[in-house]
Every structure is written in structure tokens, then in C-alpha cells.
């Protein structure tokens, strides 16, 4: 973890842009809601077969970037490419067979059962004359088994706990059978046990099925532990990207989140673990200026 790894991560990201043939990428996109510009001239490659996690402070544009990658938001400039085609100009169902999205806001219809909800993930594979094939039935059964909700098949979704419900939504996205799956803060509103549970499931889908996963996560430690490729955003710009072990340093965390911290090795996995500096160290730092602050952090580190 050299101090300059932040910069090198960014450079390699830019250099790779034209040479790779990744399935999903954004080229010089400007993202805006009405007149409010979130990001300008942003270029991102999602490495194939990676578990890419996008992190950054609130309002840094990470969910906006995910929305653009999943064609929920049309870039005002630049383009998002899926398999070499501009994603907006592709037929909607064709995109939906390649790229799945689990958004933050999803509504389970009143009185719908788990099996019915998961079955709706088959929509892009269906038509008026092909409403429910044997294949649909098999995939739905498999998706429920894989996410551990098979026993809940006939239960009503609104009777389930938050963790179970999130598993059901993931099962629905799985039933879509897309090689690429995008998840917008899949662990929000879950307690820690279910957060880990959902992330383990994502890692499993990535490792065992070779799917490319892209997730927006709030928790930097979760991101560092589970991601194979990390993208750190601030103010609509990529500050660093690369493997967590290569890019997560105390300097990067301070640059991206404005938080003083130490980065140690996770005793379980060896991935970077971010430990925020104690309150005294942080408030003292503000009062006493840069050099003394650095000393204090060093002192905290030593103790």
C-alpha cells in the first residue's frame, strides 16, 4: 500500500479504457437531474467477471452512476456501452436479458406470494404466446433454492422479515438470468447479520456462477472485504479504482470521505480494514493544524 497507489489506480483506469473489451462501460458521461449536474466527463469500465463495488460519501454520485449503467438515467453527454452497443438504443427486453438491476426502491404488490414475485423476474424471457414455459418454472425454482427462500415459496412477501424479503428480491433478479447484475445498496435497512448474509450470497453468485456484479455499498469495510474491484467516487469523479488491497489506504479514505483513520489488515480475510481515528484525535487535529494532527494520528497508531 504505497502512498501513490491512489494516483496509479486512477491512471491505469484511464489507460485501460480503450484497450479492454469489457461488456459494460461508461464513456465520458455527464450525469444530471434536470439542471443539477452530478458528474461530468466520467468514464468507467466494469471488468468482466468482477465483483465491482462503488463507494463514496453521500451525494458523490454513486447511485446516479449505477442508474446510468443500468439505463435508468440517460446521460446528457457521453454514452453507456453494453456489449459494444449504446445501451439506450437497444431493445428494452434485450438489455433486460443481459443486465439485471435491483434498485433501492421496489414495491412488493399487496398479497403477492414469494414464488409469484420471483416468477416476475422471467418477464424479459416471455411473450404473449410464451407466458410460462417449463424453463421459466425450472429457473424460478432454482433461483429460490439458490437464495434459500424455497421453503417460503407460498408465503406472502409482506409477511417476511427484511432480510428474507431482500433475498426474495435477489431471487427475482436471479430469475432474470442476466450475466451482469447491478445492486443499489442491497444491504441498507438490514441488521448486521442480514447484511453479511446478503453480501455472502452476492460473493457466492460471483464466484460460483461467474456473474459480473456491480454494487453500491455504504460500508467501506464491507466493500473492501467483498469487492474484487473497487471504485472510489467523490464529487462525481473517480478518485481511485482497483483491487481493495492495492488502493485502500488511510490517505485515500481521507481524500474520499474526509475521515482520519488507520487501515489495518482484516484479521479474518487479510483485506484492508478501516478503523476511524478516535474522536479526540480528530477534534484535536482540527484545532491544532495539519502537522500536529499528523503527529497525533501517528501517536494513536503507535499506541
Amino acid at each position, binding site marked *: 500500500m504505497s502512498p501513490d497507489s491512489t494516483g496509479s489506480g486512477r491512471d491505469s483506469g484511464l489507460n485501460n479504457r480503450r484497450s479492454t473489451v469489457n461488456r459494460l462501460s461508461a464513456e465520458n458521461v455527464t450525469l444530471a*437531474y*434536470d439542471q443539477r449536474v452530478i458528474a461530468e466527463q466520467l468514464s468507467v469500465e466494469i471488468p468482466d467477471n468482477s465483483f465491482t463495488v462503488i463507494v463514496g460519501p453521500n451525494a458523490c454520485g454513486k447511485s446516479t452512476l449505477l442508474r446510468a449503467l*443500468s*439505463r*435508468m438515467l440517460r446521460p446528457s453527454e457521453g454514452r453507456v456501452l453494453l456489449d459494444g452497443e449504446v445501451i439506450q438504443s437497444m431493445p*428494452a*427486453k*434485450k*438489455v*433486460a*436479458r443481459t*443486465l*439485471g*438491476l*435491483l*434498485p433501492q*426502491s*421496489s*414495491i*412488493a*404488490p*399487496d*398479497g*403477492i*406470494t414469494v*414464488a*409469484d*414475485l420471483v416468477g*416476475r*423476474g422471467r*418477464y*424479459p424471457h*416471455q411473450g*404473449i*404466446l*410464451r*407466458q*410460462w*414455459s*417449463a424453463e*421459466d*418454472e425450472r429457473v424460478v425454482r432454482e433461483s429460490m433454492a439458490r437464495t434459500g427462500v424455497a421453503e417460503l415459496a*407460498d408465503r406472502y412477501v409482506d409477511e417476511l422479515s427484511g432480510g428474507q424479503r431482500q433475498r426474495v428480491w435477489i431471487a427475482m433478479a436471479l430469475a*432474470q438470468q442476466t450475466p451482469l447484475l447491478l445492486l443499489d445498496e442491497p444491504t441498507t435497512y438490514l441488521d448486521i447479520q442480514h447484511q453479511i448474509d446478503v453480501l455472502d450470497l452476492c460473493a457466492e453468485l460471483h464466484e460460483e456462477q461467474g456473474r459480473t456484479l456491480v454494487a453500491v455499498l455504504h460500508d467501506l469495510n464491507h466493500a473492501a472485504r467483498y469487492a474484487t474491484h473497487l471504485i472510489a467516487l467523490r464529487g462525481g469523479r473517480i478518485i481511485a479504482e482497483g483491487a481493495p488491497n492495492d488502493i485502500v489506504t488511510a490517505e485515500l479514505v481521507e481524500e474520499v470521505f474526509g475521515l482520519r483513520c488507520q487501515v489495518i489488515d482484516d484479521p479474518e480475510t487479510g483485506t484492508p480494514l478501516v478503523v476511524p481515528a478516535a474522536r479526540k484525535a480528530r477534534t484535536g487535529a482540527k484545532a491544532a493544524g495539519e502537522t500536529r494532527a499528523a503527529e497525533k494520528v501517528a501517536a494513536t497508531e503507535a499506541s
Partner: protein
Amino acid sequence: MRTNRAVRTPGGLSVRLDVRALTVVVLLLVAALAASVVLIGTGDFPIPAADVVKTLFGNGTAGQEFIVNELRLPRVLVGLLVGASLGLGGALFQAISRNPLGSPDVLGLGQGATAGALVVIVLMSGSAAAVTVGALVGGLVTGTAIYVLAWKRGVHGYRLVLVGIGVSAVVTAVNGYLITMADLSDAARAVVWMTGSLSGRDWAQFWPLLALCAVLVPLVLANGRGLRMMEMGDDVSAALGVRVERVRLVLMVAAVLLVAAATAAAGPVSFVALTAPQLARRLTRSPGPNLLPSLCMGAALLVVADWVSQQAFGADQLPVGVVTGVVGGVYLLWLLVTERRAGRI
């Protein structure tokens, strides 16, 4: 609990049937047709149901033929179509707004059509045909206004309902103003129109309504699968490959046309569009917009209500709109109360 059955052919075609919903549709159709036969037999010159059926198949006496085919059949058919249009239009609006209150009655479409009719009656003293056109135009203009005002990077449920309520308030005020400035005979004519009634409806109202339904109902049903997905939110359905804004626009235009045409034909019959989808949904116990069951429920509800109004108060004493409010409303209340006791909303 799951009543879905898949029917598959060796060629790879498959159709999914919700057995319970299908049963509800068949039963409602039977009920609507049976009520129609009884309704045709009801009036100052009663005809037994068996004779009504015989006459409908062309084997009645000359007198029965005249009464059935010229006087009562068109009225009943208009009633069936008006009820079906309102039921389907209501189901569409409630599904698009994801809110049971997002019905055309609440959004002000009925009031908009009324305003169009009042403008023709009060300001132009127009003919009955002109009033129909006026109501149709009024409904369409109101529907367009609601859609445009509610548009903000797409049309969303609560916005649609709130904008609709606002538009409804404005149009109601306009309607009140139009009545106060009308002279006595025009005002009387306006009030009769506004109560919503089937009396005196004939073939001239039936054929345009049938043509419109023949075009719109298949169009709506073809887009129904997309609408089903949209229940889960715009993002989820768009991610599944539904072209959300296009489906919503097509279905809203269809729903506005259905409701405006029904109102133009029978006046603003209250409450059918609000209750029919809710009643249908509780019978099918199925999520989803329940389009076909709502359509059948609307038709059955309106014809039964018309029969009740004639039974209780004699022909043309009480407009059908009053009865649909009472019958539908009480039934819905009863369902809500019993469901609350059972622990499910």
C-alpha cells in the same frame, strides 16, 4: 394458495391461467347477462325472463320484439358497456397511480366531462349529440391537463392523485359557476344530465361506444402484462424490460377515452370506477391490476344497480348513479370491515 396453471403446447407456446380469476370472470359475466335479461323484462310492461330470451333469439311476438329490441335492449347494452368501461378505466387508473384513490371519480375526469357537457348545454344550448361530444372533449381535455401537470420526469403515483384532486376542485368550481349562470330550463337539463342515468339511451349511443371498446379493450389487455410489472415500481419494471413511460402513456390515454366515452353516454355514474376494481380484486385474491375481472365487475355492478333502482322506485324515478354509489359503497365497506376482522386489509 396458488391457483396459477400453465397450459403448454408441444410447439413451445405457453399460457398462464389464474384459475380463480378466470372463474370470477365467468361468474361475473353470467351474473351480468342474467341481470340484463331480468332488466329487459322489467318495466311498465313486464316480460318473463324466458320470453325475453326467446325474443332476443327472434322468436317473440311483434309487441315483445318492439319493446325488447327497440326500447330496452339498447339501454341495457349501453349500461353493460358503460359499466365495463368504467370498471376497466378505474382499474387502469388505480394501477397506474398505485393507489385505490387514484380513480377517475377522484381525479376529476367525471367532473371534466360534466364541464364539457355543461358548456354545450348552458353556453350553446346544443343538441343531445352535441352534449355527448362536449362531454367527450371535456373528459379528454381534463385527462390531458392532469397528465401534463403531473409530469415530472415521468408520472408518479402520489403526484398524479394530488394533481387530479386539484384539477377536480377547479373543474367542480367551474361547473357550479356554469349552473348558476344558466337560465332555468338549461339548468334543469344540466342537472338531469349530471345525475347520470341510463333512461332513454338507444342504439345511437350504443354503436360508437361498442366501436371504441372493440379497439381499446384488446389494446389495454395487450399492455396488461407490462402494467403488472409496473406495480413493483418504475425502476424494477424498467430493469425487467418494460418501457414504462410508453406503457403508462398508452394506458392512460385508453383509460381517459374509456371513462370520457362512458360519461358522455350515461352521464357521470358515480363510484363504479372506484369500487369495481376493488371488489374484483377481493374476489380474485390476486395481485395485479385484475383488468378483465374489473371490466366484468363494472358491467355487472351497473346493470344490477339499474335493476335495483327500477325495482325500488319504479322506472326512471332514481338515476342509476345514486344506486351504484349506495350498492357499491356499502358492499365495499362491508368487505373492508370483514377483512379487517379477518386480519388482512
